[in-house]
């Protein structure tokens, strides 16, 4: 192993064999890239296997009731368990992160929180109230707003109108006022126009106000989506891969924006993201999901060095038939006993290395 390559290894990589040198094998592993295919959560992990169930709340939120509490959440699609036993506690002004490989069930969890899907098991307590029986519309009215992985804007409306639509429930006039443009209409429209402009100003998009949302550049569309969610005055903002498709400078801008949103509006933010730089930098608590199950929870530093997380992301037994969790651990133990771990943890690493060369 050449010395210059060592610098790029993730912490703990030498123990698991996921070094820079083995990058080719790692890249083609089942868990990374490709389509999101749900794998049955019950088959993959022993339900009784514990992870650190400690409740992580940032210091500033500990004296207040958490904004979101999720207990034993799970959903089955047909016979397939997509998400199982998901627990979460989120502080009033916390920035939480949800990470995991593709197909782990992250967006499914967002969809359950916003009631796009009705959970099969478990309960969601939002702002002190159970969300059982609520619809997506009710959830938003209760104070939870979200963005989408694939941007969903009102393409043919202008940027300003996109925000005005989000201000719908604070706009106070009826259909007759709308039909006949009464003085009440004019008064309210003037007010929400000013309010929409306020949001645009915060995000520096005043100049785009008259443009069609669908014709904006990508980064601006993402921003507009966040803005639209914020305009519904949420207490919790869910961001589904806000940095997807952004270049590094845009991502760092986004990081600042997310922090600024939290500080300015004093709300909780829960985000799904693949960009580890962003997640590790701004999230105060992180949940790692794999095959529909939480495999780790904790502060960013804990997560970075957690061997289970590294395994989930980088994989272990490339190309071979999938093993159960226990079999995998036995492998590691056997390897440890032989003292082989430095070069190869399991499987047939020699073959892969030949290909790489």
């Amino acid at each position, binding site marked *: 192993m050449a010395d210059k390559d060592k610098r790029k290894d993730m912490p703990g990589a030498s123990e698991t064999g996921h070094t820079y040198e083995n990058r080719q094998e790692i890249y083609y592993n089942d868990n990374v890239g490709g389509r999101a295919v749900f794998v049955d959560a019950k088959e993959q992990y022993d339900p009784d296997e514990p992870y650190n169930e400690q409740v992580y709340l940032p210091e500033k939120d500990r004296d207040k009731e958490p904004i979101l509490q999720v207990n034993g959440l799970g959903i089955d699609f047909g016979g397939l368990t997509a998400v199982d036993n998901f627990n979460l506690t989120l502080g009033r002004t916390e920035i939480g992160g949800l990470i995991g490989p593709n197909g782990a069930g992250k967006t499914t969890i967002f969809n359950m929180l916003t009631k796009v899907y009705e959970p099969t098991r478990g309960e969601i307590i939002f702002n002190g109230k159970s969300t059982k029986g609520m619809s997506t519309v009710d959830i938003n009215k209760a104070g939870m707003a979200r963005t989408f992985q694939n941007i969903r804007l009102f393409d043919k409306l202008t*940027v300003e109108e996109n925000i005005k639509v989000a201000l719908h429930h604070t706009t106070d006039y009826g259909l007759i006022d709308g039909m006949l443009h009464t003085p009440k209409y004019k008064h309210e429209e003037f007010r929400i126009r000013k309010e929409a402009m306020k949001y645009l100003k915060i995000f520096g998009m005043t100049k785009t106000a008259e443009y069609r949302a669908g014709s904006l550049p990508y980064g601006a569309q993402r921003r507009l989506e966040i803005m639209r969610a914020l305009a519904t005055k949420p207490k919790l903002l869910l961001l589904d891969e806000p940095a997807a498709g952004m270049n590094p400078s845009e991502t760092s801008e986004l990081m600042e924006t997310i922090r600024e949103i939290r500080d300015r509006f004093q709300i909780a933010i829960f985000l799904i993201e693949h960009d580890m730089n962003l997640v590790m930098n701004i999230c105060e608590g992180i949940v790692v999901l794999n095959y529909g199950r939480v495999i780790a929870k904790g502060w960013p530093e804990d997560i970075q060095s957690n061997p289970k997380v590294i395994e989930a992301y980088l994989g272990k037994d490339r190309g071979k038939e999938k093993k159960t969790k226990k079999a995998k651990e036995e492998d590691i133990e056997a390897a440890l006993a032989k003292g082989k771990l430095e070069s190869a943890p399991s499987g047939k690493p020699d073959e892969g290395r030949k290909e790489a060369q």
Partner: protein
Amino acid sequence: MADRILKSINTRGLKNAVRGSEYKKEALISYGILIGGYILLQLGAMTGLIGRNLQGQFVPICVYVSLAISLNLVVGISGELSLGHAGFMAVGAFTGAVVVRVLENGIGFAPLRLLIALLISAAVAALAGLIIGLPILGLRGDYLAIVTLAFGEIIKNFMNVIYFALDENGHLKFAFNHEIEGIDNSGRILTGPIGATGVTKIATFTYAAILTAFTLFVVLNIKNSKQGRAIMAIRDNRIAGESIGLNVKKYKLMAFVVSASLAGMAGCMFGQNFSTLAPVKFNFNTSVLILVFVVLGGIGNIWGGMIAAALLTILPEALRQFSDYRMLVYSIVLIAVMIATYNPTIKSRISTLWDKVNPFKNKDKDKGKKPKKTGKEAA
């Protein structure tokens, strides 16, 4: 920090962005077309340039323009295909016929009678829209289109078995599925398949034009209100609409009911223009005809639909010289116009041509975008 974000966003990639729909411009063009068309036709009629036949089409032109505007609320603004618009027109026409006849003895002033009839027709048509819309608006796309088609036909057939008459004491009598006994011809209002008879034609071109202006006013206002924005938002992205707390069904229904009630008013005006009117007039063909106006004018483009409705109502009259081949020529013209409107190549050629001759061209404004894009793009 915020300033930095501000700068970078404002300068990035906006060259390719398209300016949004401009309500003021749209309203100006629409009202301009309406008032211009009204003055033109009035002048033509006064100077005798427009013949008797075509003068008889003035009220139907206004009615069809009004129907095209109201259907645009469902098809263009709400984004759902409705094939039953003629049904609501029928409800309005026959309600209006009954109301006008009942009021004939009480109110001598014809415009007031017409106004009351219009309002009641609007209410009844709105009720019909609500009854139909409630169960079906959970459907989407093609399924909704088919069900509205079926409901349009049901309304027409329902009108076929409705009997209304005034007896000698001036009392209103109603019968379902059978003739009313002991009523002479003069007392009959609605007679099943024969339809409305003995109407005293109180609709005039001016009244019809005012109704069209009202329809235009309402639809344009709704488009630029919180309700209209919600309707358009749901059209653009249903899931996102729900995620920001918009009640999808409520706003779809709102568009449908308002559109139905406006169609009812147009139908009432239509009915007051003919001395007899049979339910068969409001069949599937009429619904499709109204939809053709909307599609031809550009879905969502209100003034485009107005022009299409006016031209396609005049066209069959203008094509009388082709006698037997009239409908054939009509269809060919329709196909040609459709291709010219929707084929991108031809469209861009027309717009380049327009650019060369356009005297009002604003060079700076046209830089970033294709000319004439705002109107037709919605389709």
